[in-house]
């Protein structure tokens, strides 16, 4: 939110330099005052807590407090990296995210374009509402449904049996887990995530389409040559934000769905941290993993931003 305030103000000032800044401050003092709460928010909730990140380098005990706990250097980092499961956790985390980006990221874009092409307003609104709904179902309920449907006597296996197949327990098959995870993720969030693209579609000037139609372009041509290029800036920003979460898989969903038979593909960094950090109260270890994740995420965001800037001339910064 604050981002939009700053550039507009500097545009008014029309340049750089100390004197100008001072003049600008005086001239637009009320606009700058509006910035204060946001700056405070970042200071209090984002800068100040960073001093606590040091517990990653200490043997933190809540009762001794941050300053009372002993320094242990990189012990927790090396514990994590030398863990028997480190490679697998990293692989699973990145792969689930990668699949989600490959299959889950384009889904709301396609969805938005399809909805946009629907002519009948009532039908359009009905479709939109129905596709939003899964977003509002609690994760616990979604996972309960999944567990039920995917059991060897569940709906899906009943259908397989009806067509002469052999029922299998999907949640005990490591090969099926990523599909289940990403598929249910798409089902749940596709409609909701399409909102931002729908909003972007509305802002495409209709003259462009009219001109294309006069030139004899068909529907597919319009989508390919007008709609998608106009969506690119939105897509790029969404992609950069999505890539920033590449080291994060929601622990809740994993914990509700996994079991030891599918740890091979389902155990991710966050579920490992839950078992080790929260249940065993190893806060320092958890902080070390969090810090590691943040560094990787930051590197990913920076590089994707650069890449997008090169390829499409639009980027986050």
């Amino acid at each position, binding site marked *: 939110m604050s*981002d939009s305030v*700053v550039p507009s103000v500097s545009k008014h000032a029309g340049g750089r330099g100390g004197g100008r800044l001072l003049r600008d401050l005086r001239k637009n003092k009320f606009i700058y005052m509006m910035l204060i709460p946001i700056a405070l928010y*970042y200071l209090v909730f*984002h*800068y*100040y*807590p*960073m001093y*606590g*990140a040091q*517990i990653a380098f200490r043997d*933190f*005990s*809540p*009762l*001794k*407090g*941050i*300053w*009372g706990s002993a320094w242990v250097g990189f012990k927790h980092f090396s*514990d994590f990296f030398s863990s*028997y*499961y480190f490679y697998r956790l990293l692989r699973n985390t990145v792969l689930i995210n990668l699949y989600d980006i490959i299959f889950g990221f384009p889904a709301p874009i396609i969805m938005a374009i399809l909805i946009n092409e629907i002519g009948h307003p009532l039908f359009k609104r009905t479709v939109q509402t129905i596709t939003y709904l899964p977003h509002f179902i609690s994760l616990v309920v979604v996972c309960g449904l999944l*567990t039920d449907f995917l*059991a060897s*006597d569940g709906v899906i296996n009943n259908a397989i049996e009806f067509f002469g197949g052999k029922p299998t*327990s999907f*949640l*005990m098959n*490591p090969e099926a887990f990523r599909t289940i995870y990403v598929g249910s993720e798409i089902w749940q969030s596709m409609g909701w995530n399409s909102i931002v693209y729908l909003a972007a579609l509305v802002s495409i000037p209709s003259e462009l389409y009219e001109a294309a139609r006069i030139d004899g372009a068909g529907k597919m041509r319009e989508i390919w040559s007008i709609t998608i290029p106009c969506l690119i800036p939105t897509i790029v920003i969404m992609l950069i934000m999505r890539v*920033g979460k590449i*080291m*994060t898989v929601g622990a809740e969903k994993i914990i509700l769905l996994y*079991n*030891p*038979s599918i*740890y*091979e593909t389902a*155990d991710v960094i966050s579920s490992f941290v839950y*078992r*080790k950090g*929260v*249940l*065993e*109260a*190893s*806060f320092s270890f*958890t*902080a070390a993993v*969090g*810090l590691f994740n*943040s*560094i990787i*995420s*930051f590197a990913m*965001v*920076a590089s994707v*931003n650069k890449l997008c800037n090169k390829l499409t001339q639009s980027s*986050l*910064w």
Partner: protein
Amino acid sequence: MRNKGFISAVSFPLCLLIAAACSSGQSLGSASEQPTVETVQKAEDAQSPATEKEDAGKLPIVTEPLKLTYWSIFPSKNAETRKNLGEVTAYVELEKRTGIDIEWLHPPIGQEKEQFNLMIASGDIPDMIYFDWMNAPGGPSKYIDDGLTLRLNDIISQYAPNLQAVFDEYPQVNTQARLDDGTLFMFPFVKPDPSIRTYNGPIARKDWLDKLNIDLPVTMDDWYVMLKAFKEQDPNGNGESDEIPFSSIKLDSVKWFAGAWGMKIRMDTQSTNPFYRVGDEVHFAPLEEDYEEYMAVMRQWYSEGLIDPDFAATDGTRQNALISDNKAGVFWGGASGGLGKFLNSIQPIQPEFNLTAVQYPAGKAGINYNTHPDTVNSIPGTGSVITTANKHVEETARLFDYMYSKEGQLLMNFGIEGVTYNMVDGEPVYSDAIFNDPDGRSPDIMVASHTTTPEETSVYASGYYTQMLFLPQQKEALQIWGNGDFSLNMPPITYTSEESQALAAIMNEVNTYVDEMFVRYILGQSGVDDFEAFRANLRSMKIEEALQTAQNALDRYNAR
């Protein structure tokens, strides 16, 4: 712009963690204001011990209003009828008699362990904490070392004559309630009567056994015959082979069968102790020779459809459904939570539905090991502590001590005389308020709405349990399960803070690995058949170091 990108990328994942961390930073300052063990003891020494003893039983404990905060697990049984423990009749009366007003703080049911860790991390420490201390992360000694809870030895000897009397009466209680150095750290839940400790074991469909003319199984061969018959002879009579002969919640129930090979494996629902003992020697099942044979049998059973095909993904809800849908043949459960619950809820609808306890299976050695840890423990692990934040140590100690007095034990176990129980021939017997609820609720539920459930601070009365087991199948069950060998079970050994930390780091990986290989082997997945590689991996995870730590702890326990 550039900066902001950095901030949001780095700080969002961290801010949760750190929110917890920074609020706890304050606890450093406040901890120094709290009375340390020494100052409390000095205060005690100033008073004459003689008058203390005389005053000990005096009620009310306080004449001026006193409010204490009590963070406590909320047993799910109490939760069926009450919103918090302060509404349970016995605690209402306790507060009235002692004059102490308790403010109850309950974690959500099922999240006790997380919430306990978060409560401590928050730095907002209550006056008293009821928790499963023996299984608390880091072990009980950590919390004394860290300055969360008080060492209670002097406090108990001064203000808790009734608990002291319980210690004197039962030597095993006296041993098990302590750390290796003799430190008392909690007011424990005490279970002195061995006959009520065997409350958990295999349960089979009696009507199916009768229908197929099968005797109660004793050996593993008998078990195989029984499960095979359940699978093939359609005991539920619906013409389909949809029976699930053996139903397990996650891996736990399958792990019980290790007992037939004289081994015991760590379970999620049991104490976190992953080891067992043979004599005075500590063992770890996956390293044993017999583990391979046990695994092979389980794999065979699974491939023949005798074990629930979904067992690894099955939770309690699904198992309940399997049992009430006439699909599950055998499962593991307790006398009240298993036998009682299903007989009470299903028999009225399906009169032919019947269950029976089955003794723990005997393996090739011919011994049926009952590997439930509580069978050898007078101190199952739960209890209440006084924290360093408590400014009324004496009153708190007297409050807890009252729960161990004759009067207090009656109150905690049976409620109020004339209301929830009557004395018949000198024995407390539950009244109609429990057995004939006007709203038709089961005695099980009523007893939990009036008295404390077994696990809570006090001494567990034998009559509590035996009176609740009013079905003949339940009464039988205690004997059937009790007819076993308990020698594999570890006593409640305790570790030092350092040992505990090192052990947790090792066992976290080991447990994940063992569980995963366990289920993958049973499912017959590829690449898991090499037991040599399996053991080599365990050794590389330093399992031998962990075994030695446990051995040392057992040796220390035996030397107590």
